């Protein structure tokens, strides 16, 4: 037994020495819903995060130190998100965390970051994440309020008065529904119907028939795949002639593939990422949109999605904060993040302040229309 313990202590010493030689890596934590119901959001986010870290290290890392990404999959489950965040904060000792993918999981874990004094940049959209402002919690996804404002401005311009809404009963849909029910009356519209469908529902004929009976001027659908595609097809089947607006939740090629020709002519607010080529060359976001689209498609052979863009923005924002504060300590990163201004991200131009931890405005969104199976910027 004696010889074994001697050997053991020897290699421990060696390991410690080896570790000290290379510069201490900067550890960044990430929690994404790579599996489970929100996997079509989480998987592109994880892929993007790995790609960005590889790019960072290829360019010599941050402050000369290599960047190490520690990713956990919370499987869209609250308990697993809590465990993953605990592991990152207590076991892995990360300097900052990005994610989680869903609003529900973000709300469940965000309280831990003030206690651990480590900044969190969430990739989910719910407004409650950054209002009231928690000094340690930021978010890169544009708020539903911005998207709804963009849509309602268009509806007003087109003289549509009576609007019906149909929203999905999950975190994303609920956040949108709250803002829609607040802003529609506030901006002088009349809310004719407030229908809800389940994330896994396979048939919305009943809801659409009810909406058709009230004959609104336009219908707004707030949800992520596959529901909206079923609704788009149902609209054709039931002959609802009035225009149908979608949310930025369907801003991915998968929606067009699923909805088929029923997607033709639908209008929705979306980040400029999906229309990167059509963005004017002079537009400040052009460069970041083109590089991300090119890099992602080259490596993963799949079209980009705005959700993957959130992970992209989060990591480069952390890099920006580290460079700005010339330090990788969590508290310094947090302080520098609040000073980041005019940062061009895939979701828009970020201007963080102590009071605004989202940093985006209405013009983070571009109104796009679906023509011949592809996105077109609405003139």
């Amino acid at each position, binding site marked *: 037994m004696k010889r074994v313990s001697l050997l053991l202590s020897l290699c421990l010493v060696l390991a410690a020495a080896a570790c000290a030689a290379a510069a201490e890596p900067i550890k960044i934590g990430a929690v994404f819903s790579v599996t489970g119901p929100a996997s079509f959001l989480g998987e592109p986010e994880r892929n993007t995060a790995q790609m960005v870290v590889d790019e960072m290290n290829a360019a010599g890392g941050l402050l000369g130190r290599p960047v190490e990404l520690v990713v956990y999959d919370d499987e869209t489950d609250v308990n697993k998100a809590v465990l993953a965040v605990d*592991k990152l904060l207590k076991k892995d000792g990360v300097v900052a965390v990005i994610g989680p993918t869903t609003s529900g999981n973000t709300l469940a874990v965000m309280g831990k970051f003030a206690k651990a004094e480590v900044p969190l940049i969430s990739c989910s959209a719910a407004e409650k994440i950054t209002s009231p402002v928690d000094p340690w919690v930021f978010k890169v996804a544009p708020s539903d309020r911005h998207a709804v404002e963009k849509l309602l401005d268009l509806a007003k311009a087109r003289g549509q008065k009576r609007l019906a809404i149909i929203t999905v009963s999950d975190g994303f849909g609920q956040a949108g529904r709250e803002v829609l029910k607040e802003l529609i009356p506030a901006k002088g519209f009349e809310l004719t119907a407030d229908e809800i469908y389940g994330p896994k529902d396979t048939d919305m004929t009943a809801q659409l028939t009810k909406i058709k009976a009230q004959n609104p001027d336009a219908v707004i659908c707030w949800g992520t795949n596959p529901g909206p595609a079923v609704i788009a097809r149902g609209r054709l089947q039931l002959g609802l002639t009035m225009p149908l607006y979608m949310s930025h939740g369907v801003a991915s090629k998968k929606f067009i593939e699923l909805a088929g020709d029923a997607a033709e002519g639908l209008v929705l607010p979306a980040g400029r990422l999906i229309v990167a080529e059509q963005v004017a060359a002079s537009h400040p976001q052009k460069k970041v949109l083109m590089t991300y689209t090119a890099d992602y498609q080259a490596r993963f052979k799949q079209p980009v999605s705005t959700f993957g863009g959130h992970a992209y923005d989060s990591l480069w924002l952390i890099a920006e904060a580290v460079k700005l504060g010339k330090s990788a300590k969590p508290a310094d990163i947090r302080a520098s993040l609040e000073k980041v201004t005019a940062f061009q991200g895939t979701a828009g131009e970020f201007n963080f302040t102590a009071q605004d931890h989202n940093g985006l405005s209405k013009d983070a969104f571009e109104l796009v229309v679906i023509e011949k199976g592809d996105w077109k910027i609405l003139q």
Partner: protein
Amino acid sequence: MGFSRDLSACGGFLVLLLTLPHLLANDYYISVLILGCLAAMTAVGLNLLIGFAGQISLGHAAFVGLGAYASGLLTTLAGWPVLPAIVCAVALTGAAAWLIGIPTLKLSGHYLAMATLGFGIIVSIVFNEAVDLTGGPSGFVGIPRLEIFGFAFDTDLSYYRLLAALLAVQMLVFQNVIRSRAGRALRAIHTAEAAARCMGVDVAGAKLFVFTLSAGAAGLSGALYAHYLEFVAPSSFGFLHSVQYIVMVVLGGMGNAWGAILGAFFLTALPEFLRAFEDVETVLYGGILILSMMFLPEGLAGGLAKLWGRVRAKRDAGEAGRG
């Protein structure tokens, strides 16, 4: 006679739980232990219902949810202090179980499974849709941490110690129930309901009692979960969670008091070990269920007991040989 053995077993279990955190590499694992304890509370209650009384419930996550939401709402909307809110939440969950139990427990077998499953789904839909009350799909935040007589359990370690103590007490209480007239009545109902009836056992009343007791345990674990997470959302109380509690009981060893605890901690810790193989975790989870039912029909506890029996037999044989 039996009581002293139970007392020492529960005491030993508590000592084991309290020393665990100090043996572990780092205190991240405390949150795994906390979720393990909470799952064990529900599993032990469910084991009494399924393992001992032979009544199945595919909707127990709904009772966990009722406990969590009741306590969460009482402390946030109604501003109650935490302790009375938890006590009231457990009482409310028990009352709900009692009400739904009266018609449901007349059924048996697949019909009972279907009725409890339906009840569980109805409750999870209400959690999801009653937005003004429950905060809807993204749940609600701001549930205060537990505080008893001024001592706030704000560190994970202190909360874990409380849960470990509660779990040990729950085990003792359930052991006492099993080792009594009521316990025998429940086990009688499991194998020969008609005979139990003719021995003077009020079968309907006994089923309702054990159903309400196990729902109360689930409600308690739900309330404590809400005050640990300081947040509650419908996604933690769906049908798949009810299935997970059943699997904890069956995998641990039905009808074996300690089986449920073994199953609960094993299934809570399992995903942590499977984290390395992220994508195949679902496959492994399903595979483990099937294989354990094939090779460990009496569950982990049953398997271990048999193993322990064989080891002891070999040792006794050894002594006999030498002696």
